[in-house]
């Protein structure tokens, strides 16, 4: 395992650990988070600190509550009546679960990248401009400037600059996923929630997304759900391992992957490699 880890991670372990500890000020804090769906206890007493400007990877077997956890953060759980959420989630020390604050304002603080890209049924340009327009920006030059900036940020500008008015559905799946990332970044979030964003992509597109994440973490806090252990090892600055709705282990990847404390994580790592 450790050989694999060192092979995959480009940075030496020591340097990485130092960076992590330095930036461990949490941007997101969850306290006693419970989610029930009818009789199922989907999330059970989740307490978690998400460090700022780092990639936090959520690992765990299917159905362990990772996606639900992401949906709690941007309050998409509101869409499902059967989901009952209790506990507290703080973003920069402000509770977003028990607040009367406008939900769209809270959601704008984070960009969501789902398993399958869902570009809006609009042109490429309008997809990125959508969120900016929602904020009331109407100035065409400013819109064009922002669209270009965010498409460049995800490395898509060169590929689409001559066909910005074409439907987003014409793009390949990998390009669509990057478009969705650009669209999310355009609303100027502080957090990026990525739910297995590369699971439907080919290796080349996955690499581009991964590289983008590596760049983006300078300015954003990224929470990444993945089923690929290799991807987790390559990208994680902080790892949270979940099983059956609870957090089993969490910590720095070097420690977690090399010296798993629980049998559950050991088994998971063994099966994953």
């Amino acid at each position, binding site marked *: 395992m450790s050989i694999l880890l060192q092979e995959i991670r480009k940075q030496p372990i020591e340097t990485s650990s130092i960076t992590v500890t330095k930036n461990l000020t949490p941007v997101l804090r969850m306290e006693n988070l419970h989610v029930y769906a009818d009789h199922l206890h989907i999330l059970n007493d989740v307490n978690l600190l998400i460090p700022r400007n780092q990639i936090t990877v959520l690992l765990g077997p299917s159905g362990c509550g990772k996606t639900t956890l992401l949906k709690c953060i941007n309050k998409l759980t509101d869409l499902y009546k059967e989901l009952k959420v209790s506990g507290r989630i703080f973003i920069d020390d402000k509770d977003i679960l028990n607040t009367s604050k406008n939900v769209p304002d809270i959601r704008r603080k984070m960009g*969501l990248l789902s398993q399958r890209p*869902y570009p*809006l049924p609009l042109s490429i340009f309008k997809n990125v401009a959508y969120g900016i327009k929602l904020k009331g920006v109407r100035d065409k030059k400013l819109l064009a400037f922002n669209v270009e900036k965010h498409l460049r940020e995800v490395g898509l500008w060169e590929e689409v600059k001559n066909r910005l008015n074409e439907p987003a559905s014409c793009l390949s799946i990998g390009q669509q996923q990057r478009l969705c990332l650009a669209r999310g970044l355009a609303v100027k979030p502080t957090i990026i929630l990525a739910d297995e964003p590369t699971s439907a992509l080919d290796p080349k597109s996955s690499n581009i997304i991964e590289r983008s994440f590596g760049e983006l973490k300078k300015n954003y806090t990224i929470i990444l759900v993945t089923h690929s252990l290799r991807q987790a090892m390559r990208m994680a600055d902080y790892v949270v391992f979940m099983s059956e709705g609870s957090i089993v282990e969490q910590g720095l990847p070097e420690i977690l992957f090399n010296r798993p404390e629980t049998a559950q994580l050991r088994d998971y790592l063994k099966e994953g490699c």
Partner: protein
Amino acid sequence: MKYRKRFEELFFKIISALMTYALIAVLVFIIGVIFYKGISALSWDILLKTPKGGYYYGGEGGVLNAIIGSLYIASGATFIAMIIGMPAALYLNVYLMRYKRTQNTIRFLLDTLWGIPSIVYGAFGFAMMLFLGMNASLLAGIITVSLLVLPIMVRTFDEILSTIPKGLMEASLALGSTRCETAYKIMLKQGFQGFITAVLLCFGRAIGDAASVLFTAGYSDQIPVNLDEPAATLPLAIFFQLSSPIPEVRERAFASALILTTIILVISLSARLFSMRFSQTNIR
């Protein structure tokens, strides 16, 4: 075993193909008969003139009053159904998505309304007219027919909206849009083809229904210029002409049927072309 499978495959393929082509054949046959029987009576007069004295006994004139009346009633009713039905279907899918039971109850009620025969709507419209002291008029016809087509509008559009993946709605909400913005900017855009289909179905049903307008819109040889005047409709014109003992007038009934079918065909085709242009950006 291998032969049995092959035979099975071939058998079902032939049966399905036969059924499909039989259906098309029926459509072609119906249009063919109407065309064959009506083409001889079709003239500029019938299209562009209103009935003159003794028209139903073989006198001069045409069915322009019914063509215009039908277009007025169908357009008016479809318009009302559209402005009520579109927000209703969006509400059902965007705001009520959390409340499955309420959603299902509303769908069930709308399906029941859809199933009610049009003569019942006609009777209801007639009763309401008497209650309000109204006469048979264009307005009464439009309102009654709009009630008839409203469930068709909502349910057809709703069926399309309900097939839109939840992820698309989540994506829009996650960008910070409100439910209203999501409904009108994203769901309506994605479901636009379904919306056009719904409008089309409504128009087809509205222009072709005789029973609901019989007592409510009445019948007149004049083209209505006000909403409180009675209006003729093509289905009733066909009915009156077809019940005539004079063969010449019966031929005119087929010509009127041909006009009605052509109107529906033209509107179907143009709506399809229109919706195809609008759904190019749709996510598939």
